[in-house]
């Protein structure tokens, strides 16, 4: 996996957790998550839903690029994990800035457990989170501290 000028490029044997979830945003070094937004009530869904589940509008939702910023709502350390994951990753609920009713389940990365605090500011970064039984590596959205002083590169239990 390479990230250059905000573009994510996969190496052979790698895939993203779902197709087409990362997009390049001009002028930003990090790719962004691609969500969908209701044209009637403004609700944002990620993973993206074709129809708004909040107001049940009949109109299809449209693409919405997320800001990638959020705050930590809750976390735990996953000591016993599914095959393919490294144990002891920090599993988190991240409340997104774009829509505070949108809480993602994601791993924290580049952070030491002792530095984790509820309500801390976070930002999204893609990482390889697991290796499937067929040897494929899976790239997914993780979150790291927004404050560079709290970033500890390589910590967090992801595969790379």
């Amino acid at each position, binding site marked *: 996996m390479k990230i250059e000028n905000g573009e994510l490029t996969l190496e052979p044997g790698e895939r993203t*957790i*779902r197709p087409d979830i990362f997009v390049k945003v001009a002028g930003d070094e990090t790719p962004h998550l691609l969500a969908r937004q209701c044209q009637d009530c403004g*609700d944002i*869904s990620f*993973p993206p*839903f074709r129809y708004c*589940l*909040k107001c049940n509008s009949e109109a299809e939702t449209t693409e919405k690029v997320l800001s990638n910023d959020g705050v930590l*709502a*809750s*976390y*735990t*350390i*996953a*000591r*016993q*994990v*599914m*095959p393919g*994951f490294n144990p002891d*990753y920090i*599993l*988190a*609920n991240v*409340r997104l800035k774009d829509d505070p*009713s*949108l*809480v*993602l*389940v*994601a*791993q924290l990365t580049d952070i030491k457990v002792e530095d984790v605090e*509820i309500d801390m500011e976070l930002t999204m970064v893609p990482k390889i*989170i*697991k290796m499937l039984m067929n040897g494929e590596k*899976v790239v*997914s*959205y993780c979150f790291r501290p927004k404050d560079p002083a709290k970033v500890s590169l390589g910590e967090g239990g992801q595969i790379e």
Partner: protein
Amino acid sequence: MREVAIIGAGMIKFGKNPQYPAAAMGGDAAKAALEQAGIKPTRIEATFCGNIGNPPNLAQRVNGEVGVTGIPAFNHENACASSSAAFRQAVLSVANDVHDYVLAVGVENMTSHIEMGFASAGPLVLPHGANIEADNGMLMPGVFALLGSRHMAEFGTTPEQFAKVAVKNHKHSALNPYAHYQKVFTLEEVLESRMVCDPLTLLQCCPIGDGAAAVVVTSAEKAKKHTTKPVFVAASVLTSGLYKESAEGPARIETCVRAANEAYETAGVGPEDLNVVELHDCFSIHELVAYEDLGLCPKGEGGRFIEEGQSGYGGKVVVNPSGGLLCKGHPIGATGVAQLVEVVWHLQGVCGERQVPDAKVGLTHNGGGFGPGNSPGAMSITIVKS
């Protein structure tokens, strides 16, 4: 609609029995329920079966084990609330005069999958590719650990308070011959067992196991011909999650609050009227949060409720006298009906040493899975009265 009653309840001892076929387990539970009801299997007009991971057409196979053929047979999957869904359909079929006598059965053999070399229950509960959160590293204990961690941050709840739920349920299970585990543990033993997902330790997580339970459902009027102790179904609510609702407001499961309110209104009772509750304690944290969501105590006071012993014998309401999912076990498809069997037995007054005194009103709370997205999938609340 007709008033509906339960006239027979039966279950098998829960445990690890990889070579006990699901159909035979369900058949043995159904036989026990039919014997308690005192009716012949051929009186059954339809069978509703909850299961998630065993062979298709399990309702038909269960019928075969008790000598019944040629009747409508329905198979329900709703994750951990599968047999609550089956029970609700059984109730509706009687309430709406479609049938007079029906069977609701819950069955699950989980350990047969392990015997075949598959990873415990993981693929059963959160299949790869089905749920992006699970693919991203979410685990069942993780779901409730995240809820607990938030509850701790908002209300100052402590790991010890969560652990006390497990201590209580293990104590209760010691008197239940049907429980998978019947062993008492101290608070220290619970807290010092292996950490699974902080703050959840191993003894605060339900086991993988096998089991089956069944009830015979009929109309309230017909019930009086068969038993002097019919148990009436005052409310049977099954609902699904509203997108994002649980993410807003304090730490809670909104689907539970909504289902419970509907059930109380339908039954014409409130949480203060309950004598016995079988509640979905898949992990200790879920029980403590459900005290609040079911209205047994105010929001944020679940920690104090367990601390004061309000959910044990001698408290306000006995929660999980069976030992709950934590100790009686949680064979997924069996759980909903097994909870009902326990509550029905208390209302019938046949629970021996673990009998809740003067039990007249009982409630079961059974949650199941996810969807759409990561919203709670199913929530079933049933209220029964003697």
